[in-house]
């Protein structure tokens, strides 16, 4: 399952780069190159070959003393046309920075989103619930880059609490990008927790627990929350993947040295190996992340496991209450 998807992803990204109207050979030589030198350069870079030859080389490597590389399967895509640094070394050095940002944002989104979601669900259609509903809708509708600019304007330019530029070494400078990035995920997690909690609260076993005279807190946190969190975990996992990819805008605005900045810069400079490497890297991470969420789902919710193996047992739910 994973292999054909990864294969397809690389094929799409490679095809996109193949049809890009940039000319790396011309770029390497400059505008005044002779036609002969240009043809030679094109041959050296392996760009004179048909699409599938280039794609196979991209996967399995290309032998050449200057432009050669071991191929995507062996984690080597050669050097950047612009900085002449090894593509994957550059990606691996900037990926942890993006990871810090995405993990921070997810943590922030969960730590605020889940309690607010529970609060909204325990008092549905109250003023608090309405307020947070509006808040969640705003969070989901706000363009990320605008949110970032407003935060910079307020906290960096006016109040001067946090710096406008961000780097992974400085904790204080990480606050604004993390808040920016987490906004959308927080809204999603909040809404998901709320609706999932509301659904669970209507179940028979919750009524049973209440009838038994249990404390409302125990009912909410021990009986309802455990079951309500299952879809939330899935959403959180999927959001983490989106955060890794979606960090592009946030990183760019805060000049944060992450994978997103590298990717966008590479796109501006038409640095093909760098674009190929970073987009494939993110797509692969994203796919693996999603697979991981699927596996995790089986562990959190034993019911889904039994569904896969044999007919689902209706007893499972009763035993939980």
């Amino acid at each position, binding site marked *: 399952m994973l292999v054909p998807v990864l294969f397809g992803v690389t094929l799409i990204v490679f095809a996109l780069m193949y049809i890009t109207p940039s000319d790396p050979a011309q770029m390497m030589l400059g505008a005044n190159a002779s036609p002969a030198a240009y043809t030679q350069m094109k041959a050296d870079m392996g760009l004179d070959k048909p699409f599938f030859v280039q794609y196979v080389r991209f996967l399995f490597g290309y032998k050449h003393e200057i432009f050669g590389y071991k191929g995507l399967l062996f984690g080597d895509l050669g050097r950047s046309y612009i900085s002449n640094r090894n593509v994957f070394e550059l990606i691996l050095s900037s990926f942890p920075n993006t990871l810090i940002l995405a993990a921070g944002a997810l943590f922030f989104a969960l730590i605020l989103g889940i309690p607010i979601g529970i609060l909204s669900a325990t008092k549905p259609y109250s003023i608090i619930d309405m307020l947070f509903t509006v808040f969640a809708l705003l969070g989901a509708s706000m363009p990320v880059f*605008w949110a970032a600019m407003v935060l910079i304007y307020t906290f960096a330019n006016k109040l001067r609490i946090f710096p406008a530029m961000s780097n992974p070494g400085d904790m204080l400078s990480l606050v604004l990008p993390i808040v920016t990035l987490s906004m959308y995920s927080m809204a999603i997690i909040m809404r998901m927790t709320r609706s999932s909690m509301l659904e669970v609260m209507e179940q028979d076993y919750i009524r049973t627990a209440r009838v038994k005279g249990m404390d409302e807190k125990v009912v909410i946190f021990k009986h309802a929350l455990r079951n309500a969190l299952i879809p939330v975990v899935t959403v959180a996992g999927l959001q983490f993947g989106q955060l890794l990819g979606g960090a592009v805008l946030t990183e760019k605005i805060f000049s944060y040295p992450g994978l997103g900045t590298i990717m966008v810069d590479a796109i501006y400079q038409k640095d093909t190996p760098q674009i190929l490497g970073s987009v494939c890297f993110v797509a692969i991470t994203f796919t693996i992340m999603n697979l991981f969420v699927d596996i995790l789902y089986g562990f959190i919710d034993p019911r889904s496991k039994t569904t896969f193996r044999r007919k689902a047992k209706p007893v499972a739910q009763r035993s939980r209450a």
Partner: protein
Amino acid sequence: MTTTVAARPSTSNFSRFLRRSGRNFSQFWRQLSRNKLAVASLALVLVFALVAIFADLLYEYDFVTSNSLENALLKPGESGVVYYHEKDIEHTFILGSDNYGRDILGRLVHGARVSMIIGFATVAIALLTGGILGAIAGYKGGLFDTLIMRATDILLSIPTILLAIAIVAALGNSFFNLLIAISTSMIPGYIRIVRASIITVKDQEFVEAARCIGAGDLRIVLKHILPNITSPIIVQSTLNVGSAINWAASLSFLGLGILPPKPEWGNMLSEAREFIQYAPHLLFAPGLTILLTVLAYNLIGDGLRDALDPKLKR
């Protein structure tokens, strides 16, 4: 044929809903109008649509794209003398002017046109392509289903914004390519929705009945299945118009969509970046416009979902 349609035991919300309301929208409207936020959003969207249609009557396109540096960074409400078409004219900048002395309100008005077109065109393209592919996958099943769903999985495994960026980067900067990039990112969603709804409907008796009296596949899908699966598609499309506007602004902000001096909400913010410290109106005017528009589409989408879903009727 009419009797068959009227008597079919459909479980779909939308068609049942249509029939019950005597094939008019009065009940639907009553249902939707209970949701005050959705109605207000609908009004806002209509106003924006009118503004977008009549943009040229409000502000001339040349006027909002030509520089007049002596009027740069005016505050909202200030007026200045603009040299335009070889004449000096007195002009009040209702929302102020940007760093090139262009009228911000005028640029927002013309940007509305761009955003509306992008919003509706991308959804139309995605709906058509995704709908057809989803219908084939769901209705035909088998190899078609496997192939189309694998392709969908592949598209879904690239984060949406990244896919759009990569497509614009590959095809080059143009309005048309922006449309392609955004709609491609939406297609997987439509394929999934249409396929899932078709699978739930296609084995029901009324489809079988239609097949028995000799209806072809195309007729069955278009006349019998399609009316039964419209409600999730309508909801998804409304929400998608909002996200398309958001993505278009984001891509333009990165310099990968519509480039200045053409007025677009995202590129207005991109240009404003260096000046927000001195002229915050550059930041708030386009930003709030995007926020309100996207919010309105999301609220309408939510309202439609509630109005079209009989389970939630109270």
